[in-house]
């Protein structure tokens, strides 16, 4: 059996197994650390940085940083919340996130994180307004990378769960985006039943299932009722 170690998150003692990340230990203990690129069942990536915490004074991503015996972790301090707000705002402004006209509204983790962090009005950053073509070539799936936050969940799900590698990052820096394995989505072997296409995988409205739009009325969706937290997350809502 792996050894148990103890550390504190915001002064509350948490137990962890050796080798567990701060995030895993916190999840097991019922303590929520906000996240966007990390999701249950996929390898942590550490790219969105929304899960940053301070571990013994150093800023680290909770999803990739191992828990350390006796360490002090700051999660909900004003400083950390400030960073998280800035990061979520950056993601909002990098893409085109027009919640009122987006199919993902109410089940969108970016939107829910905005609400959780108290971002309810226009923010200080400029809008980058990407203009990328929408790929609606596939009979069942639409890909609108203007709404992508580069979390890479579809990439990892397709590669590690579906064994297909339909998606991959292409480009670099601010021009980085999610590319598909072919000229367009219809040329790939992606299917509706893939984990990559599951509603729990894409946290925003970038991957949309055709014919499934507005299955639940906006206003009646999970994050319309409760803030995003442990257990109230992606794909927890049943289709009707």
């Amino acid at each position, binding site marked *: 059996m792996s050894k148990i170690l103890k550390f504190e998150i915001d002064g509350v003692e948490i137990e962890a197994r050796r080798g567990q990340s701060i995030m895993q230990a916190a999840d097991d203990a019922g303590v929520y650390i906000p996240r966007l690129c990390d999701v249950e069942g996929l390898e942590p990536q550490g790219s969105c940085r929304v899960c940053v915490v301070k571990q013994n004074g150093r800023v680290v991503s909770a999803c990739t940083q191992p828990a350390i015996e006796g360490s002090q972790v700051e999660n909900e301090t004003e400083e950390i919340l400030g*960073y998280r707000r800035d990061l979520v705002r950056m993601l909002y402004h990098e893409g085109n996130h027009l919640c009122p006209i987006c199919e993902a509204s109410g089940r969108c983790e970016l939107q829910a994180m905005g609400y959780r962090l108290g971002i309810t009005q226009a923010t200080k950053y400029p809008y980058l307004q990407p203009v990328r073509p929408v790929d609606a070539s596939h009979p069942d799936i639409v890909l609108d990378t203007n709404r992508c936050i580069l979390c890479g969940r579809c990439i990892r799900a397709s590669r590690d769960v579906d064994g297909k590698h339909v998606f991959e990052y292409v480009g670099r820096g601010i021009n980085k985006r999610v590319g598909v394995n072919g000229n367009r989505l219809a040329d790939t072997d992606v299917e509706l039943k893939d984990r990559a296409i599951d509603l729990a995988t894409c946290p925003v409205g970038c991957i949309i299932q055709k014919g499934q739009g507005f299955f639940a009325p906006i206003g009646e969706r999970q994050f319309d009722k409760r803030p995003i937290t442990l257990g109230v997350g992606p794909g927890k809502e049943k289709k009707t």
Partner: protein
Amino acid sequence: MNSRIISACRRYANDPGRLMDILLDVQRDLKGVEPAAMELIADQLGITRVEVEGMVTFYSFFSDKIKGDVVIRLCGDIVDRHAGGREIAKIFSEELGIAVGETSADGRFSLEQTPFLGMSDQAPAAMIDQTIVTCLSPEKVRHICSSLKAGVRPEGLVTAHGDGNNGHPLIRAEVSNNIRHAGEVLLCQVPANAGLHGCLLLQPRKILDELEESGLTGRGGAGFPTGRKWRVAADTPAQQRYVICNADEGEPGTFKDRVLLTERADLMVEGMTIAAFAIGSSAGIIYLRAEYGYLRAYLESVLQARREQGLLGRDISGKQGFEFDIRIQMGAGAYICGEESALISSCEGLRGEPKNRPPFPVESGYLGFPTVVDNVETFCCVSRIMDRGGAWFGGFGTGKSTGTKLFSVSGDCARPGVYELPFGITVRELLERADAAEAAAVQVGGPSGEMINMGQFDRRLCLEDLPTGGSVMVFSLHRNILEIVDYFLEFFIEESCGYCTPCRVGNVFLRKRIEKVRRGLCEREDLDYLKELGKTISMTSRCGLGRTSPNPVLSTIRNFPLVYAVLLKEHGDGVQASFDIQSALEESRRLAKRRSMIYDPNYDET
């Protein structure tokens, strides 16, 4: 086309881990890697096309469109720009009839800009295929263009080569070493393999002890103790360990590794061999930046000569069972690959993105094996320490920063070049040696370092005060500080891998606001915005590039407050400084096809 791609893949045994090399060959042979080529490579290697596309679109020396037969890359660095780089670009453009970023209709030439060639001591410079041309003047550029148009191959453009090994038959480059001061450790006369031969008589542990005694710290800029790093690699149980030399110096203003690679290649390989013996490694890699491709054939010959002398290969120098050999991995134009874990990704045939840490490369690096990655200069120092002893080396420099350091000085000074001086000298001493009487600002450590003002010239170059991997850029009173800041941000935006949010997006926002400051459209509050945004980027970014990328802004706000103050507006009337009523009205005027009754005095005239 297909046969060339298939043979490129076969040359590397259809190994996806060698995708860098395969793409470099395909790019060279076919001038680009188009989607059909990506598909074929993917088939050959058993990977997906989008993985190949991910690589091609990551590295700036790869292209998914066909480039010209000859690719001209102009150095876009700020020092080159100050030396007339824009004028040079204009002339190239006129002579070839294409703008920067374009390929000529006849497919003969592509004209591009690259962030930093490593030639700022002989700026402006350009790279024409693998050939470097330096100290460009308008006349020289016109001559180069007419020669190229007349069919002269790039290598034929070199009429006079530089000093030292720059004249070696395998280099023959128009590059000068510009060694302005040879110190007592690296640029003095050094005996061949004295350190290595001494080491082979020792227990590997003793080498680590000696290194720790010397106090040697990594010369790339981060300053981690080399001995301690090697000891972790040696102590991590593994079937194999790797030694990688980071010859990817890309920090603008740094060119001292260029000189070491040219003049001290043997000393560097000797240091790598010592590392292999100390940690128990049988394989090494030299990661050579694409911009230094002109040195590759020479470095291959150095390795080959050492194999023939029994200094690489099996039973090195007669030491039974000690086997070590080295391959050269070419880079393809990505500053981020100077970061050790991104460099390892690149060696593995992946996008040059840093890896999550822990585990650290010394525990799990190249292909998952313990790996030490050290700078060219660090390996050179190792050889000297093993020859002369840790105590001798520790006698130079300061308490925490021992030894001498190679400083690359460029910009507004009469004697740009490489200075080998003990750690701890003041900026002022260095400026005096470089004859930089007009210096008003000095950028220490490149864009990721700090810009200091005249009142700070007595600060010392060492880890305790002003750390630097070697870059020292001098700017006179005539330079525009904010133009420099703007350029540095442009550099980081261009070179960010895009993996994490703050570095990918935050730097774009920083630059937009700096542009606004430069246009005189900002208020005092905008400085708070810059400081807060800069702090978020530096605190939350995943690797050193992101963590240091706001430094140009943060250090100039701190050290040059007046530069900002004169550009700020007061907003007594409650209207934002950036708000201009006339431009705000313009669209409405156009749509309504009439003028404003309130704001246009000549309203009636329409």
